[in-house]
């Protein structure tokens, strides 16, 4: 099995070090229990990117995010956020960062709006005169205006998640770090979050969005990083990553000609030829698809359909880790 290697930093969208919103170097966290939660990762998030930070539960995403935000100190290596080294630069850098970390958390007996006011009052660089307006705008943006005066404990899981997003959006941010923002949301809410992420990116913000559900956010991402067992298994431009996966050709033919097609494909030097019903598949490798169709026609075999299928990220992930995406350790 060929093992795709992690993409080196130079290929992350051609961004130089200075253009990175997030950069980590051999970032490592070993807990006191001895467990290595994050194992020497080099995360590179270019400015302006929507970076999908993916991996199963327990793969080290949240611990990485906690280190990025200065909540947890790395055991070794270091992390830079918007050019500032964390956690030391936190007070300078974090006002420009909105974050949702491991689910929303607010005071249950305060209303949604009072909770936002509490956070805004804690922000030494926020303007108190615009606090109310900014809170209302943030609530509006996540569709929570109607529930703004309800105590947080009466919120549904989806509403809590939205309030968490509103808190991240209290001020314009250069960078948003959204850990599992779609948790607890229904499909409609998930679509809204995707829309919001796209909107933020269009507005010039960099977004790091983590998820254990790859399919939910894959489509909005310009860049992808995949974690598994504390390591960054793969990262880079999404298009490049998927293009790198081994493509297969699928040929539809009539039942009489299945064997003939298989012979043609084998004759072209293609590997892993297999038959399933009236479909013959093989590893495409470098063979141009038009050469395949020409060869089949030339052999006088029925060609009812031909498709080139590239693996999606989920398949790449399974290939990399040998385990399903939703499997916790």
């Amino acid at each position: 099995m060929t093992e795709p290697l992690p993409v080196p930093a130079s290929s992350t969208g051609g961004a130089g070090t200075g253009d990175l919103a997030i950069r980590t170097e051999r970032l490592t966290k070993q807990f006191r229990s001895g467990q290595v939660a994050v194992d020497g990762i080099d995360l590179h998030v270019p400015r302006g990117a929507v970076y999908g930070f993916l991996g199963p539960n327990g793969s080290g995403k949240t611990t990485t995010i906690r280190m990025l935000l200065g909540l947890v100190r790395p055991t070794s290596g270091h992390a830079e956020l918007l050019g500032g080294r964390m956690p030391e630069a936190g007070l300078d850098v974090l006002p420009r960062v909105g974050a949702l970390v491991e689910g929303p958390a607010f005071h249950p007996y305060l209303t949604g709006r009072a909770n936002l006011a509490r956070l805004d009052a804690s922000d030494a660089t926020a303007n108190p005169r615009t606090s109310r307006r900014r809170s209302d705008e943030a609530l509006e943006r996540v569709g929570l205006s109607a529930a703004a005066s309800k105590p947080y404990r009466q919120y549904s899981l989806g509403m809590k998640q939205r309030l968490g997003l509103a808190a991240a959006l209290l001020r314009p941010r250069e960078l948003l770090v959204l850990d599992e923002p779609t948790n607890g949301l229904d499909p409609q809410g998930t679509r809204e979050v995707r829309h919001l992420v796209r909107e933020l990116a269009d507005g010039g913000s960099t977004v790091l969005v983590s998820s254990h559900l790859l399919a939910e956010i894959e489509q909005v991402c310009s860049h992808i990083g995949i974690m598994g067992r504390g390591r960054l298994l793969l990262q880079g431009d999404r298009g490049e990553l998927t293009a790198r996966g081994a493509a297969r050709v699928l040929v539809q033919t009539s039942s009489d000609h299945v064997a003939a097609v298989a012979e043609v494909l084998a004759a072209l030097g293609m590997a892993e030829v297999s038959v399933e019903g009236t479909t013959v598949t093989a590893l495409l490798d470098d063979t141009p698809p038009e050469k395949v169709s020409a060869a089949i026609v030339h052999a006088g075999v029925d060609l009812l359909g031909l498709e080139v299928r590239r693996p999606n990220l989920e398949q790449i992930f399974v290939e990399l880790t040998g385990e399903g995406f939703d499997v916790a350790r």
Partner: protein
Amino acid sequence: MSLVDLPEAPSTRGALGRLARSELRLVFGRRRNIVLLIGLALVPLVLGLVLFLTQDSALGGQGPGFIGNVTGNGLFLVVAALFICLPFLLPLTIGIASGDSVAGEASAGTLRYLLVVPVSRTRLLGVKALGALLFAGAAVLSIAVVGLVAGAVFFGLRDITLLSGTTVPLLDGVVRVAGIVAYVGLSMTGLVAVGLFFSTLTEVPVGAMAATVVVAIVSGVLDQLPALHVIAPALLTHHWLGFAEFLRLEPDWGVLGQGLTLQAAWVAIFGALAWSRFTTADVSS
């Protein structure tokens, strides 16, 4: 348009005031804390009522400490109520508020969001300490104020007879009782610092609260053991009853000074421990 919000950066002091006000609203707006204050305020009220109803019976005028004096002068109701609350109810109330200060935010998960706002950890701890200290002050005051009012209503306020038997004018008495209230309030600061430290150690507020209360109780018990008289002067509660000096004709300021110095030492030690712990700990809640 609304995306630009930069030309502001208010003064740091204004920002600190804003955070402090927010914290105080949180502490004093919380129903549990209000209930605690009301509970403490009920002590002088109930005590006053019981003494008022029984003052003509055979039991009238008896009781430990300052309780026997209450029926003669309402001013003593303040002192008696504080005396009753000192061993357990005040430490309990203060243990709950200070033990909850940081651990409560940690267990709710709100601590991580405060820190990424960002709030400097030192500043947050300072504001948490302020909230817990003022709550402790409010706890003592709620006993004192209700005690004074109830004492005045039930028994009237008059010139006060001191422990030595000398009688001094009412105004002098009021000043002395105010001194007692202030001394008891300041005597709680060490315990607040202990609670704050425990609060930085855990994400389980109840644990920090219980540990704080236990410290006060154990200190009180150890203080009773003659075998430990060597360490007794360093115990948190050792000088708590020193407030009685205010009821002597010539208070021994040395005793009161020792009490306050002892509290300052506990505040310094446990404040430093809390700071060093909180500013370096990983926040994984």
